[in-house]
């Protein structure tokens, strides 16, 4: 795949017919032809054609770790914005604290940020999230930035290689939510460095050999600091 030429598809662009390939994500079928349904990069596998989106909202998948911002405290839980088309419900049973009835606002209130896991997505796209998992908690300090959700896999890298690299050179604590929100905690200088690196990754996400170039950038900066 390394030298295969990548191309961009716009919505309604014809990609092939159903006889030779099967329609994957980001495509639709009409009269035995496969069309792209959104702007993205064509990813042609041996039997599937997918369109990997370039832009767009986060499409929630069960088990994803995300960063959410509380919108509203309800009587039996909270509504949390996770950058999806609709807000997610965090039920009182899904938090690690023993919340007394009516005391919801003492624990989480409008504007608070949390790390959460997606518990359920039903067929009408109603979302439920939970805090009952490893390392999930309310975020008290640090910095949250937004990136395109489609860039998240590149920021994490293969088996976390990219994010491990950034952590190694900057000594920051970083958590990348699948919904395109990234939490960074560290000194001001190192946060600034992380922001620059993430910006570079976002701009060059589809190019090859990105990890090496990012390592170069981080090494060069490390010299400047010393």
């Amino acid at each position, binding site marked *: 795949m390394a030298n295969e030429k990548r191309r961009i598809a716009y*919505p309604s662009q014809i990609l092939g017919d159903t006889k030779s390939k099967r329609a994957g994500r980001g495509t639709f079928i009409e009269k035995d032809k496969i069309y792209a349904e*959104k702007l993205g990069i064509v990813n042609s596998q041996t039997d599937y054609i997918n369109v990997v989106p370039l832009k767009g909202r986060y499409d929630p998948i069960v088990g994803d770790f995300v960063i959410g911002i509380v919108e509203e405290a309800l009587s039996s839980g909270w509504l949390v914005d996770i950058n999806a088309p609709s807000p997610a419900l965090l039920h009182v049973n899904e938090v690690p604290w023993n919340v007394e009835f009516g005391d919801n606002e003492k624990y989480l209130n409008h504007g608070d940020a949390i790390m959460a896991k997606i518990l359920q997505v039903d067929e009408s796209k109603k979302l439920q999230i939970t805090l009952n998992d490893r390392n999930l908690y309310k975020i008290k300090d640090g910095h949250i930035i937004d990136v395109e959700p*489609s860039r998240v896999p590149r920021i994490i890298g293969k088996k976390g290689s990219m994010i491990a690299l950034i952590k190694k050179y900057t000594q920051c604590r970083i958590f990348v939510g699948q919904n395109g929100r990234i939490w960074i905690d560290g000194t001001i200088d190192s946060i600034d460095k992380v922001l620059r690196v993430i910006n570079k990754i976002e701009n060059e996400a589809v190019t090859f050999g990105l990890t090496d170039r990012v390592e170069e950038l981080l090494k060069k900066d490390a010299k400047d600091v010393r």
Partner: protein
Amino acid sequence: MKSDMVLIDDKGKRLDGRGFEDLRDIKIEAGVLHRADGSCYLEWGGNKVFVAVYGPREAIPRHIQNPLRAIVNARYNMAAFSVEDRKRPGPDRRSREISKVISEALEKVVLTEQFPRAAIDVNIEVLDAEAGTRCAGLTAAGVALADAGIPMTDIPVACATGKINGHVVLDLGKEEDNFGEADLPIAISPRTKEVLLLQMDGHLTLDEFNKAFDLAIKGCLSISELQKKAILEKYKTVLEVE
């Protein structure tokens, strides 16, 4: 109303020197506003239009939500300085009608079933107007929706035809619109050639209508190519490998 204004000269040229089947100059640029999820700037003759797309996001107030699909809210607005006499700001009867017909045209191409209870907001801002702003707005909205990464079956495109001094012509200019006999804006889905919007102002015979309709589709298809070029132009840089 028959006017005696001469819109076509002896050589068969129109006021701005175009032939009967010529479009005005069109310039399209995608992804121009960084706050919006998707955006487009379009210049079409003397029209200047900005479109910003937000969403899909939760529809507010909650009672307008549809539990089965997303709603598309287009808002067409003309700036106070977009016309010669100051236009009184705010929605009026005309802009509410245009907002409604554009919303319905866009709803047809967007795959709304993928986002139940959500809303997709399309803000169409006309900065400078010179006839055919609803077509310009809809064409720009199509590019902005694609730029926002919203799934859709096609990129909608619109174009007007009309009748001036007894001739069916493509893409009316300002004087042609004001003093001509008929104006026929049409929006289509260029892949399937389905009609998304069709309005008519004035009178046409059946033969003239059919001729105007075919001409509008021809115009739409050539504008559609410009739309696709604008989208690819914006995103070709992400592919450039050094």
